[in-house]
């Protein structure tokens, strides 16, 4: 159980982030979910309240260091120091490299990778003081195996894995673990944007013969955040139905 622990989940208004927020809350954590818009933040507050969970939604642009500082100060004052951080916020801007615009590359690196650096750095001080913490970064199978049309996304997601391993070495002695979860193809708005034929073709590559559900990822996060994760750090947990085996 995670009773009384404060968990911060970025990109929690829908998809995998929402499932993570709800599962952490079900384990008794106080959950702060972030979204890029006020309406997203409100929907997080609403579903947490409906689940009878403690916590709230907050509007946060994870690419703004200033805003991260402000939101973290608010959260700490209202709920306490976050000792669980789930860096989940992410976007796609798919294109073949030969057609890729600088903005498409930069947006992905900013939102998917730089945000992990900023959020982790901002939360570490509190975790060091609390003498423990769990940082769980959501990467992607694409960062591990590559995918045509996603050089930017794969680079950011692979970057998260290297970041996590290095940070795990830095702060291990302070009882702070840093791990990565690499989801396979999960049934969310992000993958619903793919053409039906591509989704069907993908499914044939998955030994468990289905797309993953957001809850499949959430359970892995809760495991790493809880007692089961005590002695696990610097690892990448591949939750992908077997579509890529390492």
């Amino acid at each position, binding site marked *: 159980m995670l009773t009384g622990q404060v968990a911060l989940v970025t990109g929690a208004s829908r998809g995998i982030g929402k499932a993570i927020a709800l599962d952490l809350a079900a384990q008794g954590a106080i959950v702060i979910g972030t979204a890029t818009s006020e309406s997203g933040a409100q929907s997080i507050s609403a579903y947490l309240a409906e689940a009878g969970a403690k916590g709230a939604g907050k509007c946060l642009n994870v690419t703004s260091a200033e805003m991260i500082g402000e939101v973290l100060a608010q959260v700490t004052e209202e709920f306490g120091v976050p000792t669980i951080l789930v860096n989940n916020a992410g976007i796609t801007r798919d294109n073949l490299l030969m057609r890729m615009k600088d903005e498409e590359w930069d947006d992905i690196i900013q939102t998917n990778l730089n945000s992990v650096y900023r959020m982790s750095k901002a939360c570490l001080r509190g975790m*060091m003081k609390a003498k423990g913490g769990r940082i769980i970064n959501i990467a992607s199978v694409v960062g591990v195996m590559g995918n045509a049309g996603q050089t930017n996304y794969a680079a950011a997601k692979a970057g998260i894995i290297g970041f996590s391993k290095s940070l795990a070495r830095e702060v291990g002695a302070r009882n702070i673990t840093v791990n990565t979860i690499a989801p396979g193809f999960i049934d969310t708005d992000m993958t619903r944007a793919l053409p039906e034929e591509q989704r069907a073709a993908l499914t044939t590559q998955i030994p468990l013969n289905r797309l993953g559900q957001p809850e499949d990822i959430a359970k892995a996060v809760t495991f790493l955040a809880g007692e089961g994760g005590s002695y696990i750090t610097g690892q990448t947990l591949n939750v992908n139905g077997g579509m890529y085996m390492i």
Partner: protein
Amino acid sequence: MSSIEERVKKIVVEQLGVEEDQVTPDASFVDDLGADSLDTVELVMALEEEFDCEIPDEEAEKISTLAQAKAYIEANLDA
């Protein structure tokens, strides 16, 4: 209220897990008191909290003894 030196010394003793008499004014946190790089970062964090201030990284890097910490705080803060 205890003196700045006493307050700094207390923090050093707590953070580095050393005996009070080891923390002489010129004992180096790293070379003499066994601090690693993360310990020194934590030490500065603790000083920032105790004296309610922000110590810029370039200044923090120069603080490696009790005497230096005391001098910095005296020069920059009205503790």
